[in-house]
């Protein structure tokens, strides 16, 4: 690749040239965007970071009712807070590999039942106490306690026993699971002194930042923890500011009051990126918007009807209109390139009114309107999406009737209760976890009532299969099965769209979650 580009990317990294200009030149030189992007990020790392500074991040999804208790974290702001002051055994790197934190390394037995983590030495809690395997054990126990309301409870259910001895923390599973480390990367599972049994909301962790100010629903300030064992963040402190109102959040970035904001509304992403000192970063993630049918309830127990509906949805239009292009089309199974072992070769399902009509006819449905329940809260633009679905289905002669449900109580009353409704999934770090949460016969949240023994068997087989090639093949079969018989209609995967001031350097796209999977404050620096 040309010298010029390297030179340019260096300039960008040094902040002498905006990212947008660079991309322009790159395109002019006939370089694909992907390549250019990768060059840019590598160049970014290459460039020498500026130390110090106070980073302000404007975030949606914080209420005055939030707390610092990891078990209760459910929205973005608490997530960011946990990332700042806490650390799990392992993280998932942007590449999809494991990034060892509290654990130094991990060993599994042959069928992946017994997992032994070597706990890192000399890791210090913000209260000065040194972390031991006991703390790890306690933490895990707290989250696996049935009475607890931890968001990680589901993950812990497969665990049969845990023990800590010396530098080692050992987990024994009922059935083997090759992905256990990925499961334990769940953001709830930050290690707390004594597992936070006594005071879960204390905000004491082993993270690179320690809690300075905690005003739920307002702001959370964290300063660098000088005794952090690992690679020190470049910035001195970070402030997570709660800005739930989209307009306020955008304005804050535009007026230079914050360095980054999350959840940029796709509608305005293009407009925002035109601003001279602002970049819009969008990363394809595992999150997806779905319309779910209960395969055990009439009329959706009829495969042809399901297929009819699947063919009757116009995925491109949805990505265009609802996501404004900040996303990718789905293929009726919950996995995309964001996951390891994804099989890209599975053919994409297209909008095909003719086929749809044909299947609809075969289904012998009486032609009475099919009721699709939806609420604004199901996912951003859900109602609009439903409207589009209705129109495209109309073209295939399939009568959809949209029933708006109130946001309040949608998740308790409609979702997972009504046979056909809109929903979203944030995605999981690995395929196994995604399938286990929503497509295993015994899963609590099996919101398509997908109870197929063959599928369960494949899932278990893949889980304990340590050879990636074989695993990938099994997963591919499962995907095909869901795609052609399952109860979910998956029109689109939504990107993480974020606004970043050009003064922020060292940004790396991370498909796991927004804000570089929450590590932007750890890895980015502020150019003066």
């Amino acid at each position: 690749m040309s010298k010029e580009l390297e030179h340019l990317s260096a300039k960008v990294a040094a902040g002498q040239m905006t990212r947008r200009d660079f991309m322009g030149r790159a395109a002019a030189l006939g370089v694909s965007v992907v390549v250019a992007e990768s060059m840019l990020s590598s160049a970014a790392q290459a460039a020498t970071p500026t130390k110090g500074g106070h980073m302000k991040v404007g975030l949606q999804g914080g209420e005055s009712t939030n707390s610092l208790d990891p078990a209760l974290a459910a929205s973005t702001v608490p997530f960011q807070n946990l990332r700042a002051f806490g650390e799990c055994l392992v993280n998932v790197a942007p590449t999809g590999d494991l990034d060892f934190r509290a654990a130094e390394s991990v060993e599994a037995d042959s069928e992946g039942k017994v997992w032994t983590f070597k706990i890192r030495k000399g890791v210090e809690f913000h209260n000065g106490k040194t972390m031991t395997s006991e703390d790890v054990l306690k933490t895990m126990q707290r989250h696996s306690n049935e009475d607890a309301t931890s968001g990680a409870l589901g993950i812990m259910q497969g665990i049969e026993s845990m023990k800590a001895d010396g530098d080692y923390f050992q987990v024994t599973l009922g059935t083997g699971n090759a992905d256990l480390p990925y499961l334990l990367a769940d953001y709830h599972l930050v290690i707390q002194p004594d597992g936070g049994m006594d005071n879960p909301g204390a905000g004491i962790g082993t993270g690179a930042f320690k809690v300075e100010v905690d005003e739920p629903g307002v702001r959370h300030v964290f300063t660098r923890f000088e005794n952090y064992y690992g690679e020190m963040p470049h910035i001195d402190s970070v402030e997570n500011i709660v800005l739930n109102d989209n307009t306020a959040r955008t304005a804050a970035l535009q007026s230079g009051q914050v360095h980054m904001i999350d959840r940029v509304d796709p509608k305005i992403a293009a407009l925002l990126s035109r601003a001279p000192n602002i970049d819009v970063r969008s990363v394809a993630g595992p999150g997806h918007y779905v319309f779910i049918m209960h395969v055990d309830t009439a009329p959706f127990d009829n495969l042809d009807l399901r297929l009819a509906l699947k063919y009757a949805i116009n995925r491109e239009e949805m990505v265009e209109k609802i996501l404004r292009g900040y996303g990718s089309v789905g293929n009726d199974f919950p996995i995309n390139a964001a996951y390891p072992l994804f099989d890209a070769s599975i053919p994409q399902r297209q909008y095909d009114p003719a086929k749809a009509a044909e299947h609809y006819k075969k289904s012998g449905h009486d032609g009475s309107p099919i009721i699709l329940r939806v609420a604004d809260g199901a996912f951003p633009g859900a109602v609009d999406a439903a409207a589009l679905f209705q129109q495209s289905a109309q073209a295939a002669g399939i009568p959809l009737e949209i029933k708006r449900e109130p946001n309040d109580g949608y998740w308790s009353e409609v979702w997972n209760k009504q046979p056909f409704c809109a929903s979203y999934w944030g995605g999981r770090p690995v395929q196994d976890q995604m399938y286990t949460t929503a497509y295993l016969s015994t899963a609590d949240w099996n919101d398509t009532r997908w109870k197929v023994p063959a599928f369960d068997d494949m899932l278990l087989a893949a889980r304990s299969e340590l050879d990636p090639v074989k695993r990938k093949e099994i997963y591919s079969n499962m995907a095909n099965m869901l795609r052609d018989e399952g109860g979910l209609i998956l029109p689109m995967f939504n990107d993480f769209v974020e606004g970043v001031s050009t003064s922020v350097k060292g940004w790396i796209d991370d498909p796991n979650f927004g804000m570089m999977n929450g590590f932007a404050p750890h890895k980015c620096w502020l150019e003066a």
Partner: protein
Amino acid sequence: MLKNLPLSAAIGLSFTAIYFLAAIFAPVIAPYGMADVVGDVWEPSSAEHLLGTDQIGRDLLTRMIYGGRTTIWIATLATILSFTTGSVLGFLAAVTGGWFDQVMSRFVDLMMAIPSLILALVILSSIEATVITLIILMGLLDATRVYRLARAVAVDISVMDYVEAAKLRGEKLGWIIFREILPNALSPLVAEMGLRFIFMVLFISTLSFLGIGVQPPLADWGGIVKENKEGINFGIGAALYPAIAIATLAISVNLVADWILNRTTSLKGGRG
């Protein structure tokens, strides 16, 4: 009645009339269907979309017309509700006095001690906000204010000799309220009605803005502002039009109200 109509009132009346007509004949005059996606997002105004399009490419003018319909419809009905209940109870309290007056007035004090927006929040956060529930909720909340005014006015009137004369004649409550008091209380009430109507419009807009008001795809002006507000920071007008509509409607109704008020005060005659 319309003789020597001052300019301001004329403007007010005509604007108000236009808005109400637009509200009534919305389906006829609206160029597109309320929920139809007919263009790209936030198109600038053009021949086929006079005000451009909204955040998912619906024709903004159409949305505005239907939005006005919902807004005005709700505000009007709520106002009527609040006035009928408020004034009748207020008159009753003023004329009968005694325990009824006490109970009502204390209750109203209680209701007014809790900001209505907050009451609305508490209630609407869990019952589904339909047009009906909104009308009833707003109407009743506002009735407390009307009650106070009506009672005050009626108390002043009920000490008049002609009311005493009617009582001495042995007239029943009905006659005293509807034939002696109401006609004389009408003008201040009507003038107030204008203002209350405006507060209704603003209130419903605020509720929709907070996301607990009229629910999509049904549009109301406040809702349209909410839907399009992301555009504001980029100077996109979509959010401004409904605001302008609200403002102009409010101002014109205010003008009318002022005019009525002036007419009635001059009817009482100045100092002589």
